[in-house]
């Protein structure tokens, strides 16, 4: 790494917030909101505002999770661990010695986008930092038999184990559910993957996103139709790992609830292709009815008109109005500037009934008329005009705009945290706002092996000599 780059990585200051975070007085200024609105919102704030979160108990405070999700480059187990840790579980992340390969991922391999450890100078990618929130980082070489023996010693201390290695790998290593459940019958063991550890399309070693949405028909149905020049498209984010992570957290807590009554742990399998299939809504019912294959329909919706994103003067604009009340409000808004467009839509006999509007011809006509109005206005102008009529509308925000959105800043959805090793980092707060047990983020990802001493000492009684010995053998 060149000296310039070193300096850049190390000293880049936090650029956020560019505009101040709104204050309580500004948000609930009597000039802009009614008494009733202020009253109910402040009640919600009292229950839910994250400024109160640190004083509240944690829903999963008694749970310890071992997350062995670093064999490949899938981030599904990492996501799952993140949600469980937000809800209060003590998540111990087991990385291979030297650190998880995911730490090294950075957009286009650019080192200057990484975060530098201010103690030892190691670089860490943003995805890892963002998703490994408040997990304890330990290292352990599971590829070696001695390493697996240590894992077996950790298992009686754990309630949950999450892994995403190749199908059957842990079982072959003697640390699969069949073996570990003998050591800890209360253990909840979750396997994460793309398509499954059994079945005709089962995961091949090294398989990653986006192979699961490709297999479940999701990618083929995403993107613009061919006649508009489109192709199938993958999600920008790792939608499959994210969905599998969500469901893993879901399944884990469900199994914990079952364990209260039965005292038994269990084996769980969460795959992202099934997650995609599960949420693919009418695609399946429609297929069953007459063999239909759901096509790509770009940014329009096959089942609702207007419910679409179309270009406007300075970007892209979402407008939604699935039922009559909103439909007429949208055209009223358009009619203020372009009465002829409003007339054109209101004159059209096939657009009068909600369910008649979803034919393709009707959708094109509607979107063309709407876009012909929007092309002259910016996202903010369109939105202001539509909000006046209480229509759900908003521009497609780029991430700088997301980071600076006053609403998100006020609610602590986007916030910065001072980490011990990586300086100030901007991140997205916990999704779980709660009255009694909110989700929260106390720290982001930690350096490799940061908690080795703490965890191995506390749980296994290893002293410094033992830890040194393990380190020298390359086990931790």
């Amino acid at each position, binding site marked *: 790494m060149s000296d310039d780059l070193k300096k850049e990585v190390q000293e880049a200051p936090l650029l956020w917030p560019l505009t101040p975070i709104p204050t309580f007085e500004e948000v609930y200024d009597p000039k802009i909101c009614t008494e009733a609105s202020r009253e109910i919102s402040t009640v919600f704030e009292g229950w839910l505002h994250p400024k109160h979160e640190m004083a509240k108990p944690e829903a999963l405070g008694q749970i310890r999770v071992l997350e062995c999700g670093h064999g490949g480059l899938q981030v599904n187990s990492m996501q799952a661990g993140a949600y469980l840790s937000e809800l209060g579980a003590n998540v111990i992340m087991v990385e291979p010695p030297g650190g998880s390969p995911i730490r090294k991922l950075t957009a286009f391999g650019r080192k200057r986008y990484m975060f530098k450890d201010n103690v030892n100078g190691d670089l860490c990618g943003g995805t890892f930092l963002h998703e490994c929130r408040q997990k304890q980082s330990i290292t352990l070489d599971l590829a070696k038999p001695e390493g697996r023996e240590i894992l077996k010693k950790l298992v009686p201390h754990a309630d949950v184990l999450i892994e995403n290695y190749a199908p059957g790998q842990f079982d072959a290593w003697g640390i699969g559910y069949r073996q570990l459940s003998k050591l800890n019958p209360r253990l909840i063991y979750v396997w994460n993957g793309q398509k499954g550890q059994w079945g005709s399309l089962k995961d091949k070693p090294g398989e990653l996103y986006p192979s699961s949405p490709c297999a479940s028909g999701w990618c083929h149905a995403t993107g613009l139709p061919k*006649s508009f020049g489109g192709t199938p498209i993958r999600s920008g984010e790792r939608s499959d790992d994210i969905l599998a992570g969500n469901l893993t957290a879901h399944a884990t807590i469900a199994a914990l609830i079952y364990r209260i009554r039965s005292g038994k742990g269990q084996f769980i399998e969460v795959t992202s292709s099934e997650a995609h299939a599960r949420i693919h809504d009418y695609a399946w019912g*429609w297929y069953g009815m007459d063999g239909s294959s759901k096509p790509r329909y770009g*940014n329009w919706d096959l089942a609702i008109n207007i419910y679409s994103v179309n270009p406007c*003067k300075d970007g892209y604009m979402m407008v939604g109005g699935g039922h009559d009340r909103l439909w007429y409000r949208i055209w009223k808004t358009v009619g203020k*500037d372009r009465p002829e467009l409003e007339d054109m839509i209101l004159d059209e006999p096939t657009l009068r009934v909600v369910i*008649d509007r979803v034919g*393709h011809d009707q959708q*094109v006509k509607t979107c*063309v008329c709407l876009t012909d109005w929007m092309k*002259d206005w910016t996202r903010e102008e369109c939105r202001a005009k539509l909000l006046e009529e209480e229509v759900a509308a908003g521009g497609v925000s780029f991430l700088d705009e997301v980071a600076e959105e006053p609403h998100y800043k006020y609610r602590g959805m986007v916030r910065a945290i001072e980490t011990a090793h990586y300086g100030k980092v901007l991140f997205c707060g916990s999704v779980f706002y709660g009255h009694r047990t909110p989700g929260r983020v106390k720290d982001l990802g930690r350096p490799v092996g940061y908690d080795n001493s703490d965890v191995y000492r506390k749980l296994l009684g290893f002293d410094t000599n033992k830890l040194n010995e393990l380190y020298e053998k390359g086990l931790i």
Partner: protein
Amino acid sequence: MTEFKVSLFYDCPKCKARNFFDPYSYWEYSGNFKCAGCDVLYYAEWENGQRVVEPEAARGAEFILPGYAETPDLKPLSGEGKTSPPPFANVTFLGKPKNTTVSARGKLCACTQLTPEDLEGSCWKRIAAQKKFGKSW
């Protein structure tokens, strides 16, 4: 006062058909399009959704089709070779309730409109007839 320009549809001076240009194909487009009413080619240019060159004599033979078109009395002119092909999900597109009584694999399913008599006393009679056990509602 902002002046508004019609950009995304065009009334053909020859046949009076109104062609609608879907914003995805035409947002940044320079080239020919074919009028769905009289099959005449026109050349036009769009920049960021604004039509900067009004339709004029065609240049070359390449063209794309409008997204939708209609006659002055609002009759649709869409169809193969007229407008760009819609991404249909099946070959038997109707655009209205299909009223099928069998599923894709040929078994009975409740996908057809019913009359009050069909429902009298029980769930849909044809489905109910197949089932010995069932609850009425």
